[in-house]
């Protein structure tokens, strides 16, 4: 029993991880060297272009977390650049306060940017995508109009001078190095967040929001942090931009800039750091080679945006991802190793029984469930069967908080579960899987499984930004646990593979691994055997039994009678939202009404 477990991780997997990390860092180190050495071979004008690329990247890196990772289509982010530029300039020029030193002005602008980042961003929590896109667009127009109108502070159409940083940062190369340092810092910080549990949670919100909630990810808290950070970076970029321009007027901040930022991210690829970085450099440099076309630049950007969206929605990052183009073996068997469960789950605490009392829920005139009593016990597999529309999945959705029951209560150890608080379920160690697997297709299988353990990290967002010890400890703990969970379900060989290359059955087992990351006291599975081969169903059954033996209460909604009768300790048959029969598998199998109505005799 010890041998497979011992083989599993430490030595060679760690070494692999290290080479992978080095390989991933190479392009960044290369860019760092080029950036440091740039003044040696770049002329004065190119120095200006390079500085501009750095300033843009400070904004784009933050926006990348919003757009590329969290998938929030924030089109008007230029508003925050404007805000930062004016805040820094006005404070440094002393239009309203005594003139402040430029760095203090920049810091205050960052603070203002963070606040407004949240104000612009938070509608994303309530509104649909297009609505959110258009509110950010509206915000961008408003900010420019206010800048134009508020003459006593912003100088109106005449503008204000940008801040001048103290020597030696006031020289061209001095200022370049200042911007470059900011850019490098932003790259490092966003890369840290991107590869942390926060970054994975953001991609989960983007691609599989329902699963993110089930894993205990609280979207409001997470997005708020990201909007603060991204808003602050945009404002800092604005302050630097103002200094670079040396004089700012409202026309400097057109929507074209926003479009440019957006394209840089899309061209680079969602959920990547390197891609958008290259995209930013490319878009800053490109117009210099096409000088006669300057008037057409926005037109060309728009054409580029259309082409990217239609032709390569994955962006540069996907094009550069050679690793994931290597063919996978064709005949892959999933061989779970339930014997490793004990190491993964440890001792599952006794949280009491999960009970449903007289739960009822109707949609319009249809009674989906109608006075349902159910008790799910720890250490047992409970089967929930019934014809289509009998209320099985609805029951699951009530337990996990996607629907609020109209009558009755769902209790854990006698305490009612809060209605509709989906992400709270994970904290109570209630995990679930879905009828159609909800997976982040662009992330690796390992990362997908790590999402399941998001709530077990102890480091904060800021600790992840700065890669402090607690963040690194969290990451290595989550990584180990996820590898173990993959070994348990028999997918460890696919850990590094992009999840959208997996077969359907493998996705099902990936979801189970993700759910096991919670060390669940209760595990709810929605048709886990659908689409599996007979052999895989048998292995699934053995795995679920082992999970129950480890102390977890398992609730399985299923259509395959064989699986249900093989593994369940108790079975409940639903029909039209009511219990038709309940008892041991043997009792159900011989229950006359069940046989007539459902099993067929």
């Amino acid at each position, binding site marked *: 029993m010890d041998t497979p477990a011992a083989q599993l991780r430490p030595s060679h997997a760690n070494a692999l991880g290290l080479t992978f990390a080095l390989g991933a860092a190479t392009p960044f180190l290369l860019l760092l060297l080029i950036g440091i050495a740039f003044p040696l071979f770049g002329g004065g004008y190119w120095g200006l272009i390079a500085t501009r690329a750095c300033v843009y990247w400070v904004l784009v890196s933050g926006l990348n977390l919003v757009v590329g990772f969290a998938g929030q289509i924030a089109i008007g982010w230029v508003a925050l650049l404007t805000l930062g530029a004016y805040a820094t300039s006005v404070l440094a020029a002393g239009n309203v306060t005594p003139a402040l030193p430029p760095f203090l002005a920049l810091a205050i602008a960052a603070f203002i940017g963070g606040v407004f980042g949240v104000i612009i961003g938070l509608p994303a929590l*309530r509104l649909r*995508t*297009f*609505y959110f896109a*258009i509110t950010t667009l509206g915000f961008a*127009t408003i900010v420019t109009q206010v800048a134009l*109108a508020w003459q006593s502070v912003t100088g109106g159409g005449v503008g204000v001078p940008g801040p001048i940083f103290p020597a030696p940062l006031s020289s061209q190369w001095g200022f370049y190095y200042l911007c470059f340092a900011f850019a490098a810092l932003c790259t490092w910080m966003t890369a840290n967040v991107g590869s942390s549990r926060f970054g994975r949670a953001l991609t989960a919100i983007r691609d599989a929001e329902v699963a993110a909630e089930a894993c205990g990810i609280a979207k409001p808290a997470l997005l708020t942090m990201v909007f603060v950070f991204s808003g602050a970076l945009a404002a800092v970029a604005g302050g630097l931009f103002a200094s670079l321009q040396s004089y700012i007027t409202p026309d400097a901040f057109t929507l074209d800039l926003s479009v440019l930022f957006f394209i840089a991210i899309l061209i680079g690829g969602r959920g990547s750091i390197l891609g958008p970085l290259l995209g930013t450099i490319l878009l800053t440099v490109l117009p210099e080679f096409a000088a006669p076309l300057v*008037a057409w630049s926005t037109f060309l950007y728009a054409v580029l945006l*259309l082409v990217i969206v239609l032709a390569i929605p994955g962006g540069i990052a996907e094009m550069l991802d050679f690793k994931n183009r290597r063919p996978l073996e064709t005949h892959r068997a999933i061989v779970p190793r339930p014997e490793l469960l004990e190491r993964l789950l440890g001792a599952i605490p006794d949280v009491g029984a999960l009970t449903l009392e007289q739960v009822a829920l109707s949609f319009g005139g249809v009674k989906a469930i109608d006075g349902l009593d159910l008790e799910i016990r720890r250490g047992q597999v409970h089967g929930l069967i019934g014809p289509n529309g009998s209320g099985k999945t609805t029951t699951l959705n009530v337990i996990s908080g996607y629907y609020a029951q109209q009558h009755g209560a769902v209790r854990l150890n006698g305490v009612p579960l809060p209605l509709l608080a989906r992400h709270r379920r994970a904290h109570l160690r209630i995990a679930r899987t879905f009828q159609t697997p909800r997976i982040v297709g662009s992330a690796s299988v390992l990362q997908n499984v790590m999402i399941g353990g998001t709530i077990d990290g102890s480091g904060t967002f800021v600790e992840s930004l700065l890669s402090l010890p607690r963040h690194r400890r969290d990451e290595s703990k989550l990584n180990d646990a996820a590898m173990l969970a993959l070994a348990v379900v028999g997918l460890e060989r696919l850990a590094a593979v992009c999840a959208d290359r997996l077969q359907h059955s493998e996705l099902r087992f990936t979801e189970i691994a993700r759910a096991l990351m919670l060390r669940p006291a209760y595990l709810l599975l929605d048709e886990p055997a659908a689409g599996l081969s007979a052999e895989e169903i048998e292995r699934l059954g053995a795995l679920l039994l082992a999970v129950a033996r480890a102390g977890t209460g398992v609730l399985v909604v299923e259509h395959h009678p064989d699986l249900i009768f093989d593994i369940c300790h108790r079975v409940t048959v639903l029909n039209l939202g009511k219990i038709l029969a309940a008892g041991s598998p043997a009792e159900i199998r011989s229950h006359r009404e069940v046989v007539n109505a459902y099993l067929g005799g």
Partner: protein
Amino acid sequence: MVQSIVSTGVAIGCIYALIGIAYNVMFSASRVFSFTAGTLGMLGGVLGSLFIAVMGLPVALGFILALAAGAVFGVVTEIVAVRPVLRSLDQHLYVLSTLALALIVQQFTAIEWGTDARPFPRLFDIARGAFDQQFWLPMLACAVVIIGLELLYRRTLIGHAFLAIAEDSYAARALGLPERRLRILSFALAGAIGALAGFAGGEMLLAFFGNAPLLTFYGFIPVALGGMGSQRGAVVAGLLLGLFQQAANFLVGGIFASVAVFSVFIIVLLARPEGLAGAGLQRRV
């Protein structure tokens, strides 16, 4: 002053309502909100001015050509920016593809037509004043469109087919309705309506490329507040928006009026994301 607020407010409200209707017609057929809605309005104004004032065509011909151009642009939108991304509706790529198309047309107009607002020709040589044509033309256009759409949806077979697609496109396809052709037709219709908005409001808004983003934004407010897909909601909310905006214009001045409109819009939307008369959320799991 009150009279001026009301006549300008109602007229501009009608233009917003028409753009909102264009949004809705496209949305009903495809479940897609398109950033090109305001571009259509801008095109109506610019093309009307181009055909009638610059090229000297008769008013009726210029009008028909402008609407036809709007319809063609609607069809182009469907083919270029909507159909290719319909398969992956949940990735919201349509937001970007329609934005890109809107920007392409807007920039092209800026370069070829110029970045200055140019006058829109007077269409009828009759008296000015509070009942000037720049006020009643948008109202007339709005009334015609609403009555026309109502007749189309209630009385004609093709209108019923539109409704069926809007209600449940899968079921409609299963019943053998030519969903794709109906979608193209809807986009053509929306294109003509959007262009009509810009044409009818030409004297007030002028022939100006910068109207595109403004109309995209202000035309969406009636949709968001009136509830998506609801024509009546769009008209009521559009009129309210026009009146509110003009009143704010007089009371606090143009620029802070847009701040006021934006704030009210955000607050109402946050309080009621489904709009003032909209339906609730769909099942997700």
